């Protein structure tokens, strides 16, 4: 068992350091400085063992100290130590069912039991013993150091906590046997019951002392004795449980685990993407060529393409109507509202940056269309690329016009309600918001075509795309802070959007046939 435990520890260290090197190697520019041979350097393994030991010490002492401080010290002021014991016990009951270690599907277990075929029972018992020892030492030290509970009661509480874990595990074994379903402590069968139990036990832990209700000592002693006896009985079942291998075979599946494994992530991504395609057999198109291809793409992805635009439009409508009602109820704010609209149009640019659906649309285009089509050489021909680009740009502009028009109308309405402005101001604000929307639609699609950020494995992996996105964000943020009249800014924005769109389109026509390809 000890040998298995040490092997797990070494394997865990190895993959932690390998993941670290791998993740650093994927950082743009810095990654190029990390050669593959870094994986074999013992130096990193030693560092990882040191980090791992420090992490485990922090986990045992630090986390337990933090837990006792946050849950037992901070919420109570001037209460008897018996009230603390009472609260601790209710929290321990709750914790024993939430955190059993055995029913927690972790990456370590996946690697050791599924990939490395280690004996499930000896690995589980070894890991569980380590977990229990951590609770014993960590909680005992924390209770003695941070609370007024005497050491002998602290010792008793820690033993009871461990016994409660044994009982919870045994209860889960029983539930599994009855229902035939595997229990995952992170995914309760009924979230409602789970939340209700949490509320009840937290209520008992904190509510009773606040209401000055202290359970008589003898009841607590009886309760403690029952826990102790049941706990002792449960130990046997944990040690002799014959189905650990079966349990983990079912528990350690890809739905329960967050794995960094690229292939698994990719399969999950592919399956999510495919679910976005509408299976409605009545969808057809009367068009031909690229228009036909694009039309079917849009129709079969209308749900995902429209989802974000619809949500944003609804949000704008609700906020706009609330603001208009508020202005009617509190007319004293009309002046300020009018002033804000007439002077803070640059902020709308920042807002438009967030509500533009360009990124989610290009993501859908890549995942469900370009990822496969770019493998075909005909699809990469300049004529083909540009014909499709035109169709896509039209769609993207239309999709984003819905929230942009709503925003323009709402801002114009608020401006009108709050005192109005000249007709030219209305027109400039209205058209500048539309031009912002068109600008971001063009910008997102042009960036996608010029810096195609995805690799063949569907990962977004392009330093230049990341930098361009950051610059866009930074410029929008910087502009949002500029104090300029909405009229001036609106006129500049309209002119800029026209010039930018023209230049970008020329760049796409010249460069996209070379840049828009699989990496």
């Amino acid at each position, binding site marked *: 068992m000890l040998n298995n435990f040490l092997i797990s520890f070494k394997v865990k260290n190895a993959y932690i350091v390998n993941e670290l090197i791998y993740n650093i190697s994927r950082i743009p520019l810095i990654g190029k400085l990390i050669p593959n041979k870094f994986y074999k350097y013992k130096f990193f393994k030693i560092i990882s063992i040191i980090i791992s030991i420090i992490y485990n010490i922090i986990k045992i002492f630090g986390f337990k100290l933090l837990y006792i401080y946050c849950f037992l010290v901070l919420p109570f002021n001037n209460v008897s130590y018996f009230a603390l014991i009472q609260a601790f016990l209710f929290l321990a009951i709750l914790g024993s069912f939430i955190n059993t270690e055995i029913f927690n599907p972790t990456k370590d277990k996946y690697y050791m039991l599924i990939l490395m075929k280690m004996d499930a029972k000896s690995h589980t018992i070894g890991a569980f013993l380590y977990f229990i020892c951590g609770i014993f030492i960590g909680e005992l030290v924390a209770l003695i150091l941070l609370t007024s509970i005497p050491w002998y009661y602290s010792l008793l509480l820690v033993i009871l906590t461990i016994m409660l874990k044994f009982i919870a595990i045994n209860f889960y074994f029983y539930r599994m046997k009855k229902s035939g379903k595997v229990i995952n402590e992170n995914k309760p069968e009924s979230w409602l019951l789970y939340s209700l139990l949490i509320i009840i036990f937290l209520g008992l832990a904190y509510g009773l002392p606040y209401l000055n209700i202290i359970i008589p000592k003898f009841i607590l002693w009886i309760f403690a004795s029952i826990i102790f006896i049941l706990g002792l009985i449960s130990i046997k079942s944990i040690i002799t449980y014959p189905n650990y291998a079966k349990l983990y075979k079912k528990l350690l599946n890809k739905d329960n685990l967050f794995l960094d494994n690229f292939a698994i992530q990719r399969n999950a991504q592919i399956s999510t993407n495919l679910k976005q395609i509408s299976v409605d057999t009545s969808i057809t198109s009367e068009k031909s060529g690229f228009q*036909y*291809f694009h039309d*079917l793409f849009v129709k079969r992805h209308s749900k995902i393409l429209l989802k974000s635009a619809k949500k944003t439009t609804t949000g704008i409508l609700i906020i706009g109507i609330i603001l208009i009602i508020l202005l009617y109820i509190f007319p004293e704010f009309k002046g300020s509202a009018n002033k804000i609209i007439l002077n803070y149009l640059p902020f709308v640019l920042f807002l438009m940056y967030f509500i533009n659906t360009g990124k989610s649309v290009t993501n859908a285009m890549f995942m*469900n269309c370009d990822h*496969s*089509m770019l493998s*075909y*050489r*005909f699809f990469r021909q300049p004529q*083909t690329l540009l014909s499709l680009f035109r169709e896509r740009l039209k769609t993207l502009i239309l999709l984003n016009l819905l929230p942009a028009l709503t925003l323009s109308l709402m801002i114009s309405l608020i401006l009108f309600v709050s005192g109005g402005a000249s007709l030219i101001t209305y027109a400039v604000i209205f058209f500048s918001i539309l031009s912002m929307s068109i600008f971001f639609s063009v910008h997102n699609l042009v960036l996608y075509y010029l810096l195609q950020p995805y690799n063949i494995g569907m990962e977004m992996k392009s330093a230049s795309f990341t930098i361009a996105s950051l610059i866009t964000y930074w410029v929008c943020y910087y502009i949002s802070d500029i104090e300029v009249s909405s009229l001036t800014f609106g006129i500049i924005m309209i002119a800029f959007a026209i010039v930018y769109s023209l230049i970008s389109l020329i760049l796409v026509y010249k460069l996209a046939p070379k840049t828009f390809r699989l990496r």
Partner: protein
Amino acid sequence: MKLVIKNLEKKFGTKEVLKDINFEFESGKIYGLLGRNGAGKTTLFNCLNEDLEIDNGSFFIEDKDTRKVEASDIGYVLSTPVVPEFLTGREFLKFFIDINKDKITDLKSIDEYFDLIKLDVSDRDKLMKDYSHGMKNKMQMLVNIIANPSILLLDEPLTSFDVVVAEEMKELLKKTKKNRILIFSTHILELALDLCDEIVVLNNGILERVSKSNLNNAKFKEKIINVLKGEEDA
């Protein structure tokens, strides 16, 4: 018509995957491209299809004159078939025919094309996301054949087919080799011997023809394996 490769080189970092490739492929023949795992077969295909930029050398078509290999000259069937999964098989073919009308000689109806790859009638109007690996592979092969490219690169295309479909596809490839160069990469030696007119081996970055001369199949196999192991020159 010939596809001529001269002094082609491709490196990934410091690793030279293709070193000074010199070869002439002739039309009307199926070439079996053999190589061990990681030998660079897919890299060679990707270079010829201009998915990867070559570091050195050139390749061109030699007919009456010599000319650059154009996009329309090459069809490339990938080992992992990729198709636009949001379309039905029929819609994909319609789109492909729509945009390639000018290049397709002897245009057939969509169903006639489906008959060519023996795709079941009930599957023709299904979304391709519900197609099996083999069906996607058939579709990919079909669109590459329809456009009538003079060079067809096939990267392990038959491995995902069941024995019956594999036989059908072999027959289809034999039929399509006229006036075309078919380069067929595979790990299966028997398949290469059965289907291909010439065997070429990519070993240590060098492409070389393994000539059968008067050898019987068993001896020829042994010779190819020795070349793959790098133990004997062809």
